[in-house]
């Protein structure tokens, strides 16, 4: 009796459970198709690239090796440049932002709120406005086409300070008061109490900054002139415009450029999703 009831309930429930799954699988597949084509094409031979069949006749894994040895292209160098710049900017920005956020959220001083308001109000300004004067400044400083010119302007952000400040405001003050009573200096409170507690916020900011700089396009395009200084986006653009007919190699290059992003995303997505939703809801 109970068994048949249960199976009846199950059979009416089945389509209701399955329907969203089928739609989700369909959508996922649609979203993945371009990536699928990218990977499969990167394994084809050049003559085979235009064939209607997506499947490569023979798998040319050596395409991935030959990307690094194409004449006039410094793919390996670009890769390193991109990673180096993104890592350095992330490190410097997270460090300076957390210091500033600490000053804005934990210390009480005279002009604190006014300066914070100044930070806030610049967040609305489009980055585009800053490009032209910043570039003129880089020319005067002789930093065009250099790593320093790429790293410096990206390293100090009002957004990062804001994000971390919001996060630190959520940490109960009782904790650092207790540490102060125990004789900790301000620096110790920052380094040993607040910083470890704001780890989720720091990770979120790390992801945002790393991704933003790994993918950054406008500023490098303006700044970088010589091909050994290129970052991946600029390099890929150069590749496409100079030797874009080699579709298979181009796809191999793009695949390798996308892989770090996917790795970052899959390993850290929990923090990322939380960060975006938190930032959005607080608005």
């Amino acid at each position: 009796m109970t068994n048949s009831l249960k199976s009846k309930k199950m059979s009416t429930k089945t389509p209701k459970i399955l329907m969203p799954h089928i739609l989700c699988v369909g959508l996922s597949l649609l979203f993945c198709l371009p990536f699928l084509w990218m990977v499969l094409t990167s394994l084809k031979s050049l003559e085979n690239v235009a064939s209607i069949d997506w499947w490569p006749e023979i798998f040319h894994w050596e395409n991935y090796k030959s990307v690094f040895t194409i004449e006039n292209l410094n793919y390996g160098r670009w890769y390193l440049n991109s990673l180096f710049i993104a890592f350095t900017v992330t490190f410097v920005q997270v460090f300076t932002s957390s210091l500033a956020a600490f000053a804005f959220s934990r210390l009480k001083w005279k002009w604190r709120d006014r300066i914070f308001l100044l930070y806030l109000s610049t967040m609305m300004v489009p980055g585009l406005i800053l490009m032209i004067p910043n570039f003129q400044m880089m020319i005067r400083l002789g930093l065009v086409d250099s790593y320093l010119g790429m790293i410096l302007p990206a390293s100090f952000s009002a957004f990062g300070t804001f994000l971390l400040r919001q996060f630190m405001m959520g940490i109960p003050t009782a904790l650092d008061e207790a540490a102060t009573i125990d004789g900790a200096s301000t620096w110790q409170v920052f380094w040993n109490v607040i910083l470890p507690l704001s780890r989720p916020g720091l990770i979120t900011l790390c992801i945002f900054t790393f991704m933003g700089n790994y993918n950054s396009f406008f500023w490098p395009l303006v700044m970088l002139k010589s091909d050994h200084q290129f970052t991946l986006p600029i390099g890929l653009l150069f590749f496409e415009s100079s030797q874009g007919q080699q579709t298979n190699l181009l796809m191999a290059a793009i695949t390798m450029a996308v892989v770090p992003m996917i790795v970052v995303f899959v390993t850290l997505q929990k923090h990322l999703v939380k960060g975006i939703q938190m930032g959005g809801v607080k608005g």
Partner: protein
Amino acid sequence: MINKNKSDTLRGLAFLSPNILGFLTFTIFPLAFSIVMAFSNWNLSLHNMFKEESLQWIGFDNFANLLNTDEFWKYLKNTLFFMMGIPLSIAGSLFAAMLLNSDLQVKDKKLRTHFIIVTLVIMGVSVACISGVDVSPFFYLITLLIGLFFIGGLFGGISVYRTLFYMPHFTAGVATFILWKKIFNPETGPLTQFLQPILNGIHSVAEPLPDSVFYFLMGLTYLFLGFVLYKGVNIIRKWREDEELGLGGLVLSFVFLSIPIFCIPSWIQWSNLGTALTIALFLIVFGSLLIGWNSFKTDAKSWDDGLGNAVMLSMGLMVLEFVLLGFGELMYNFPEMVAQGLNTPNWLTEYHWAKPSIMFMGFWASIGSNQMLLFLAALSAVSPELTEAAEIDGANNFQKFWNVTWPQLAPVTFFIMIMAVIHGMQGGFEVAKAMTNGGPAGATTTLEYYVYEEGFGGGRLAYASALSWILFCIIFAITLFQWRFGNRYVND
């Protein structure tokens, strides 16, 4: 005491100093510099290393010149055209979020094994079928992927699908734009290879049909458009009657509703019949507004009541109008097109197709984006008691969504919309640079691209600065709009 204050300030500044030094140098100073620049005549062809003419203050001349050039208005229109995809992509994000919000994870172990076994059997059978017909191994891969996604979804629920949905947005950048450029390739791209056989099929079906079928379809489209407009205006009228809509919302929604007739002739070569029908339609709608003016009178408290609602509704209707008008025009031209043979367009290199192609890619990248995540967060905050109560009262799924869920999503939708608009106003450079170089004939040049071209291509620094400040003013106005009405909207 004074001493303590002083040391506090010093300590605060010490912690702040690394950040604020960079902030002052790379944000505040350039900002001020840029304002000054916008009022000068700084141009690299006049003021460079070899030729040092003194800078002159030319007041608002840059701004005045800008507003007088055709380019500015053309590129503004391009930018707005791209932004018309926003309501569609938001709707897509909402759909995806609602899918993910349904109870995906199957916790009942027995049921789950049951599903997995069935899936494996179906996969096995389809692989067996495929291997009988000798097709490309690609189809094995697809079968495998479908099975994998499904089983992953059964175990992981939302997190598996969310990862897959979010991937296009997360990786979006020059790399994926170049990928799409190859996909859009008119000769060897997979999109053309996929669509051409379908078009050939349509061609063989459509060729024997008399032309009148298509004219009939065109008429049907216009009738449907009339119906949609009638419904929309009626909703607005009802809001007015219920004293929920102030004058501002009324005016704005009619502005949005009438945008298509002003825009279309300048974007596409519109047939005479199409133009006449469109104009007639709008005359009827607005005529009915004038004639039935009395029922539009209201006692709404202030002019900005229900503004957010009205904007959302009329934006949605506007997109629908564009789609329907486009479809009607397509039907009108179809017999001629069939006679010439149906071919896929040259996507990115064809003037009228470049923008829609890029927008298509934009949907791929933006449906599973932050918008979806924000909707997900908002959906999980919708109280289940309300939907359950509606269910008990006998509401169907659509009614539940429209009357219970949607009103609760209104604030977040409004926020997403504003963010997307701000983003859209100052966007489009990266895509256009990677895919089309702003062409063909400036079809994909947005305002951001224009700033790049003027400032870094042409060296007209002052002019580009003025342009970017105009952009800022537009964005600032939108932000003010959000502050003013977003909060009110949340309180409603």
